[in-house]
């Protein structure tokens, strides 16, 4: 039953592949991943090795941002991300359009997974909450984005607009992301939401604030 399903799926993918303009290497990956027997097993093993190498490479690149405690868990995260990405790539193979090289397309899955996992790992012991005191810590301990805001009037308008024009959810998202540096996928996880939905809330909040500043005569600098 499974073998028959695999054969049918492989036929669909191969027919699609012939209608796409794939580079030689990408075509070879798709052909071997949709083949049966040893060729398939070998291609899956090579793909998993590639995804794991990429995950570990990204963890090494981010080492400085990760807490020194808990480093032993980082490799587990890499293995988990490689496993999940492999499953996703195989499940979505029939959606590969060849607009990027196969390896770049496949690596996207593991990068998105492991980056998000590492950001959540880095923040796992840190609280995320609405903290209006962040405005009072200006300018000494504010993030660089705010330290340079020297115009007291503009800052005052901005602070009032955040308080009065944004919904509580937008205020939490805006202050957490732009003023406290909380990654949007960490915020999404804590709020039981998605990265796309959190970004939409941030985008809408920023739009409201830009409009307030434009109405106050700062249209040139928020254009």
């Amino acid at each position: 039953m499974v073998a028959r399903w695999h054969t049918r799926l492989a036929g669909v993918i191969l027919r699609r592949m012939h209608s796409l303009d794939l580079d030689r290497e990408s075509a070879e990956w798709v052909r071997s991943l949709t083949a049966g027997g040893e060729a398939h097993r070998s291609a899956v093993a090579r793909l998993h090795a590639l995804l794991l190498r990429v995950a570990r490479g990204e963890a090494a690149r981010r080492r400085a941002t990760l807490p020194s405690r808990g480093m032993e868990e980082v490799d587990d995260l890499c293995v988990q991300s490689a496993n999940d990405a492999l499953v996703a790539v195989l499940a979505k193979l029939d959606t590969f359009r060849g607009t990027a090289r196969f390896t770049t397309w496949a690596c996207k899955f593991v990068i998105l997974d492991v980056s998000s996992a590492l950001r959540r790992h880095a923040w796992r012991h840190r609280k995320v909450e609405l903290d209006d005191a962040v405005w009072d810590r200006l300018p000494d301990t504010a993030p660089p984005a705010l330290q340079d805001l020297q115009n007291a009037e503009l800052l005052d308008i901005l602070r009032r607009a955040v308080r009065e024009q944004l919904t509580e959810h937008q205020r939490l998202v805006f202050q957490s992301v732009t003023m406290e540096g909380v990654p949007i996928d960490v915020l999404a996880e804590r709020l039981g939401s998605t990265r796309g939905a959190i970004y939409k809330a941030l985008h809408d909040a920023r739009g409201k604030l830009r409009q307030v500043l434009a109405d106050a005569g700062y249209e040139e600098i928020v254009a």
Partner: protein
Amino acid sequence: MTDMPLRALLGSSDRDPGCDAGLDVIDVYCDAVDRGEPLSDRFREFLSHLANCEACREDTEALLAAIRDQKKDESAG
């Protein structure tokens, strides 16, 4: 005061398709960067999103680093 800090806080008013649409083209964009192709017209909205979204910027840099590492591995091996 310059507009740079404000840009970091408030983003730009250019059309921004958001994370989900951006992540759909991140692989195509990274291959185009790797091949040295012109980017500004073809990826205008994605570039505008990258300017506004730190997580997507990080993920794009990560995928570009992975492409560079693969090339190094290929030339070494």
